[in-house]
């Protein structure tokens, strides 16, 4: 079962990325014309969404982040590389001997957990400090008070000026370096005799080299989030908008869907077997023909249409015999527990019927043809010849053999039932797993869709497993391997 589940994850994941269209574009509903964002604002929003969802990482990283058990960096990047590219540190050999640790200047994102207002204020302060105007004093104070959180702002300001020619840029870099020294407690200087073009680049590289090695910017380690997560840690992720954990929501919804599906399975078997036996005992007669015709027609009715017709027929505009929306009346809280139970039963009648009728038709047809085939066999003829009553022949001898293939059909109808639950829950507005999946599909919410697909896949496999076990139990010729 585990490889198949892994395969399911691969399939849905592959679908998510392989179908035409960028996921972020689809989620934002931006697709227009050639599928490209048609304005720079849309492009910026798309890029922001991609980064937030971690879509700009490589596919393998995304896959393993989902799979777990380790969380790959929540700020959208694997834990061993930095947010905006590589944190490259070079050891450069000096002509006079020794080496110089130089870092690649780049924009440094604010530390996670920094409120946006503060990071913006720090960035402004760094710029003000660099320009050395009247606000420089205030800016210095602000930066000093921020402690470690000031580093990204100062270093980003350094990066902006690293490659600018001219004396002004060099002066600004000097001011920034001057502010960095008391904050970091380190004296960083480019080694004597090491020149660069423009001249301040060496200093900037030296500071970045310090930051990436001793200054704490070397790794982005899970950004304060849990180190463990992902599918192998039984974490199904969070919804995109509401940030609720998918697993908890699925559990709540399952408590609605699973009983309905179980009742549907039991009911369809419970009705199909007698119907099939009834039909098989009178082959070719009018009653058999009528029943077969009715079941055949029932089999061809689309599920959603059956639900809609049920609503039309039994709802407020029709006979008004049954409630058609939800699982409980509006005033359910005021009822006694027994009253609530009865209310629940009334609400479930139409959804269960809509779930059941298709499998019922299919199963009873299979039962009928299976039983007819068994009745033709020799041992039944022998039993009749022995003088056993017809009832005993059918129910004790023939039926057992005819039931064997019916057991394996559980595996066939279970996926149909689970898939059909989407439609039934949408039509009748039930708060179940199908409706949850439908809402997730409309929102293109990856975690919800993946979570529900996984769950249904696991349930289907459990169903197959159960049917295999039942089969080995029912058929004495089979030895369970």
């Amino acid at each position, binding site marked *: 079962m585990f490889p198949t589940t892994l395969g399911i994850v691969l399939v849905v994941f592959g679908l998510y990325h392989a179908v035409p269209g960028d996921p972020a574009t689809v989620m934002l509903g931006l*697709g227009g014309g050639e599928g490209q964002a048609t304005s720079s604002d849309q492009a910026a929003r798309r890029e922001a969404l991609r980064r937030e969802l971690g879509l700009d990482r490589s596919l393998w990283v995304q896959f393993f982040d989902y799979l777990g058990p380790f969380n790959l960096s929540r700020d959208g990047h694997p834990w061993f590389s930095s947010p905006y590219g590589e944190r490259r540190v070079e050891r450069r050999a000096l002509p006079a001997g020794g080496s110089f640790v130089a870092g690649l200047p780049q924009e440094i994102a604010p530390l996670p957990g920094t409120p946006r207002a503060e990071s913006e204020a720090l960035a402004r302060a760094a710029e003000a400090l660099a320009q050395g105007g009247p606000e420089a004093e205030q800016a210095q104070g602000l930066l000093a008070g921020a402690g470690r959180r000031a580093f990204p702002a100062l270093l980003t300001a350094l990066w902006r000026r690293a490659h600018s020619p001219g004396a002004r840029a060099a002066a600004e870099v000097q001011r920034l370096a001057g502010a960095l020294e008391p904050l970091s407690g380190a004296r960083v200087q480019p080694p004597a005799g090491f020149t660069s073009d423009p001249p301040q680049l060496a200093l900037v590289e030296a500071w970045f080299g310090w930051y990436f090695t001793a200054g704490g910017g070397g790794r982005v380690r899970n950004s304060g989030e849990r180190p463990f997560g992902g599918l192998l840690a039984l974490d199904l992720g969070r919804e995109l908008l509401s940030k609720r954990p998918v697993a908890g929501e699925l559990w709540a919804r399952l408590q609605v869907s699973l009983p309905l599906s179980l009742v549907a399975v039991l009911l369809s078997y419970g009705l199909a077997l007698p119907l099939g036996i009834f039909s098989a005992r009178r082959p070719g007669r009018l009653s058999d023909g009528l029943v077969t015709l009715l079941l055949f027609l029932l089999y061809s009715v689309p599920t959603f249409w059956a639900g809609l017709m049920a609503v039309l027929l039994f709802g407020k505009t029709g006979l008004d015999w049954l409630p058609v929306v939800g699982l409980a009346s509006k005033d359910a809280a005021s009822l006694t527990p027994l009253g609530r139970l009865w209310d629940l039963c009334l609400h479930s009648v139409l959804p269960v019927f809509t779930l059941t009728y298709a499998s019922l038709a299919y199963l009873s047809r299979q039962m009928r043809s299976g039983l007819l085939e068994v009745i033709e066999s020799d041992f039944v003829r022998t039993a009749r010849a022995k003088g056993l009553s017809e009832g005993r022949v059918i129910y004790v001898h023939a039926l057992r053999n005819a039931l064997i293939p019916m057991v394996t059909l559980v595996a066939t109808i279970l996926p149909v039932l689970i898939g059909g639950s989407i439609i039934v829950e949408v039509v009748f507005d039930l708060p179940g797993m199908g409706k949850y999946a439908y809402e997730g599909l409309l929102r293109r919410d990856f975690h919800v869709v993946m979570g529900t*697909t996984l769950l*249904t896949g696991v349930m289907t496999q459990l169903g197959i497993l159960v049917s295999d076990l039942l089969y080995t139990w029912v058929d004495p010729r089979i030895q369970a391997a």
Partner: protein
Amino acid sequence: MGPRVPQSPPRAPAEPEPAAPRAPAPSAGRDYWDSVALQLSRRRSFRVALSILTLLYGLAIFAPLLASDRPYRLVAIDRGRHEQARLGLGQLGRSALDALEAGAPGAPGGFDSKARLAGLAARVRELSEHAPPAFDRELEALLGRFAAALSAPPAPPSLGALRADLERLLAELAAAPPAAAAVPGRGATGTASPAHPGGAGLQLEPYRRYPILEILSPTSLFLMGLWLSAASFPLWNRLWNRRLGGEPLRRRRARWAKAAVLVAPGLLLAAVFAAVAPGPASPFDSAPYKRGLTDGSLVPLEPPWLPPLPTGYAELHPEESFRPPTFLASSWVDEQGRALDPARRPRTDGPSGLVPPSTPVEVRYGEAQANAPHRHLLGTDELGRDLLVRLLWGARVSLSVGIFSALLLTAIGVALGALAGYLGGGVDLALMRLVEILQSIPAFFLILAALSFTDRSALPPMLAIVLVMALVRWTAVARLVRGEFLRLKQQEFVLAARALGFSGLRIAVLHILPNAMGPVLVSAAFSVATGILTESAVSFLGLGVKHPEASWGSLINESKSPEHWWVQVFPGLLIFLTVTCYNLVGDALRDALDPKARRW
């Protein structure tokens, strides 16, 4: 073949038979497919189902001809356009002359004069459509003079002559109001032109057009031809067989010829159409014909030939939003457009006692009266579009998605199943693993997921649905074909073929595959049914075809309110009917193709 006639009585056994001996009975020589066809033709349910399906396909294929707001044939004068062209010519001509006289910066031969010339030429074209032939030459000459003037500025006197000629021509081209009793029904209002205050004016020549051709395409013509030959197949097949005589061998050889005859009319029609007809317009472009006929600017000289359902696919009647089927009394409206049935009347605003305003029902040219029973036979949707027309056009989407997805999934399934079954080993193992994974996700789920992840603008929704359904549902067919291949691989004819030195591919395709096709055909028939069901369910959930295309499922999606029952009942009935017919066909095929099946 040999000269021996199969039906001759057997020779004396001593005589050697150089050719393969044939049994003398007339039923001999009937191969597997002959007996399949015979069994199928005997089943009444199969015949009924096939007839209904043929009818449905015919309705879908001929929908552009059956329900459209464009007339088949129109002999009319577009007075509005003519007048506009006349005024436009006057404006453009005068402004060009003014510019030339003033020596304006628009350099001769530059963009300005090119644009002016193009505009003048367009107006002249429109005018010559209705102007009598005598004027054509004059208009051409005028255009020529303008062209010459714009390319090389002439002297002012000739410009003055040009201007005088222009004015004269414009005055002469002013159309006369049409005769009031030209067309029964709506008469167009004529306005006296300023040049002829007495009402006399130019008698315009009508054009003769076939606007319906604008929404046809070679593909649709091909399908129409194909349908005609397929629907009449029983008839000409029987005649042909009678001509051939009773020999099954000749009949079998005629199969290729019959297939060609099946396809030929369609190809012929398509070729003729492609050569002759004007370029296609999208069926969703609003055609000006109906509007012009309604408001009188298009004056028909003969009654136009209208389609049986003279409403367009996307033609809106906003004042008839959600109108019940018009054969019901509850759909009737009064002159202000308010519903007569009290249940449908909008409630008055309580405190003020005001009634919401309503618009009277607009009866356009060719449509039935507001309360006629056949006006909207199946009701309307939210924007007042006729449901019957949309059902006909939606049939094209639903039926074609069903067929194409079934074809594609069968092709993929057969190919992969044959591969796995014939090669065995690692390929088989890998493929079966894949099949297992795909089968443990409910197919409907997977289809919905794939469709929701797809970017709508990157792929047309119909293609997306067909592809996704094929890529998800091929597993059952692959399993089937693989099973058949595993069974047939052990047979002796495969060994013989291998001994003869045929390549693996040839054995698989030419020898084993035809014997494995029986269950595949049955599964294909059922796949079409499932495909139609799935597509309608997906469209119902909103993830399928989008506006302006509609399929039966998305039509049901128009309203989930139980008050608008007609929007839900009728498309569903059609889906139910189609799926039932396909299930019947599949059942009949299954019983006919299985040599061991018992018939109860």
